[in-house]
């Protein structure tokens, strides 16, 4: 783990983000649709065997973008099938994604119980 790893992660993460920025600016795809696309694309990358080699090179540059979440789901499915057979098709995805999903939801719930903070208006990621 050196500065090279950090630089590679920076380049990969930046490249993915600026590619998605083109879609935001040039098409009328909403951020929600782009997030759905990224997750499914992550599953696809893992399925064709491209994700693991990319992760070896770029590390968090591919695992922190939502692609990584899709790849986590796909890996969970694969490992569950390897260990439990056909049932793994149903159990693998949620099991592998559980940490991220549950943590996000619990924090969201916690903050909404805590109050509205300094938020005043609905987010406007879209321009």
């Amino acid at each position: 783990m050196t500065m090279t790893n950090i630089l590679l992660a920076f380049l990969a993460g930046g490249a993915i983000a600026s590619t998605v920025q083109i879609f935001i600016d040039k098409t009328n795809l909403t951020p929600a649709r782009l997030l759905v696309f990224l997750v499914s694309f992550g599953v696809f990358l893992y399925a064709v065997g491209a994700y693991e080699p990319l992760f070896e090179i770029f590390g968090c540059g591919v695992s922190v973008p939502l692609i990584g979440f899709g790849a986590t789901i796909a890996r969970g499915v694969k490992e569950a099938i390897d260990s439990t057979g056909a049932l793994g098709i149903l159990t693998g995805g949620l099991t592998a994604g559980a940490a991220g999903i549950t943590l996000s939801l619990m924090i969201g719930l916690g903050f909404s119980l805590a109050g509205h903070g300094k938020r005043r208006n609905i987010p406007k990621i879209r321009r």
Partner: protein
Amino acid sequence: MDIYTKQGKKRIISEHSPHSRLGLNMLKAFLFGGGICAFGEGLRGLFLSLGIKSDTSTLLVSMIIIVVAATVTFLGVFDNIARHAGAGTLVPISGFSNAVTSQAIDARSEGYVLGVGAKIFTICGPVILYGLASGVIYGIIYYLTGLFGW
């Protein structure tokens, strides 16, 4: 007045649309998106050097970014950053976390069951649903190819 002609309509629309600065937006998205990933990679290096397993380290990095993004959302700062960063904060897991937390906070006034409980899934629901659906399709293909020894 040429607003009734096609050219006139086109001219008026282009005059009133905000100028798209694609190059600048892409650069900002690159810097923010890359910055978040580089921060994550630095953290992962730290975890690995502490002897934490690779899988766990990667997961911990995502979890920390989720917590930070949710906190920044709660403090009302996330929107100010996202206005500049665009896809830079949307694409990393921070966008997912922001979508969950901001929806949950904004839905408070509608109650905790059908307000927060339902609206918290407005953006993360589709992401989870189609992520799982893609996973199931992959699972079926993987299972069948294993079964028949292709």
